[in-house]
């Protein structure tokens, strides 16, 4: 129990194997379903009986909607509203996964790079396709910024290409590393509470403060992921100058 990494272990709830490929239903799959269910529940309850003057739950849903809408319009322009459903779903999923992970006995799906990288890859491939659809081959001009001496392209183009392709990696590592580091730190500090006896009150106070900080980080990381998807979408929709 004292092992701070034990919380990240994936266990098979229902073992499934199809043609030699392990497709087991794991605790991660279960928590993804729970998180999706909780997010859907909030939206469904909030919009069950919509009124002009919103109640508490409806206000919460409207606030979430407006935050994402503001982010999309300010970071990627009003034409990016077309992609609102996907971005809003991503935001809600990460937000609920991060927050649910703070509950005792829960499992944080976003603390696994497999989950965050899959999401980042979907966003990355999708945004690249949107860019090609919008700008055609002109999208490639992004790798050759205008207004530099021709010789500089030898250095600049590889840098631009690498900086483009590390985006999904930095996007996923940021979320996964923040969630994992926070949870490990909480567990390590919590371990001190028991072993220090009466002086355990000191790490206890730190853990309480850390939990507040982790709540902030959970919300902030969901927001940061969303903002970055919007910033990258902006590059795809609008030609560089």
């Amino acid at each position: 129990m004292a092992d701070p990494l034990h919380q990240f272990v994936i266990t098979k709830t229902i073992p499934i194997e199809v043609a030699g490929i392990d497709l087991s239903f794991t605790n991660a799959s279960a928590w993804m379903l729970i998180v999706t269910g909780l997010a859907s529940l909030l939206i469904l309850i909030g919009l069950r009986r919509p009124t002009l003057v919103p109640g508490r739950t409806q206000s919460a849903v409207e606030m979430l909607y407006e935050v994402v809408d503001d982010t999309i319009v300010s970071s990627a322009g009003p034409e990016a509203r077309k992609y609102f459903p996907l971005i809003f779903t991503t935001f809600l999923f990460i937000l609920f996964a991060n927050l649910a992970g703070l509950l005792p006995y829960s499992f944080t799906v976003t603390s696994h790079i497999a989950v965050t990288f899959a999401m980042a890859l979907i966003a990355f491939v999708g945004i690249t396709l949107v860019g090609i659809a919008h700008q055609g081959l002109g999208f490639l001009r992004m790798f050759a910024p205008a207004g530099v001496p021709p010789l500089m392209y030898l250095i600049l183009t590889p840098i631009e290409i690498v900086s483009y392709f590390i985006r999904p990696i930095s996007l996923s590592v940021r979320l996964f590393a923040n969630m994992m580091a926070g949870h490990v730190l909480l567990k390590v500090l919590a371990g001190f509470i028991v072993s220090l006896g009466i002086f355990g009150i000191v790490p206890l106070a730190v853990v309480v403060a850390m939990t507040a900080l982790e709540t902030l980080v959970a919300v902030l990381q969901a927001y940061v992921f969303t903002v970055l998807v919007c910033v990258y979408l902006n590059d795809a929709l609008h030609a560089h100058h």
Partner: protein
Amino acid sequence: MFSEDFLPDIAPIDEVALDKRLAEVRAARDADAIRAEASRTAGTAMGIGFRIGIELVVGVVIGAGGGYALDRWLGTAPWLMILGLIVGFAAGLRNVFRLTAEYGAKWDAADAADAADRAEKK
């Protein structure tokens, strides 16, 4: 119209005390607004920090790792790793620059507005 007689029997209003209390409540409300604004700004600043911090690390690690893998494959160690390290670092910096450019523009606009204000006052 009501006559004074119908009004419930209440203590006469102490206007000085009421004003004082009103001022206290207003001050607390304004302080709350300022604190809320400050925490919002701190939240965004933290968001920016989270955004750019990891960019450099990932750039360097991916650049050096990719170079190392190519070195192993082509037998050119350690040149591609060194090149990859440099290009990865530059790519990370480029991403940081791109992400912070919009804030730079925002701050420049704020500075310009301040300068215009000062010029107007003179």
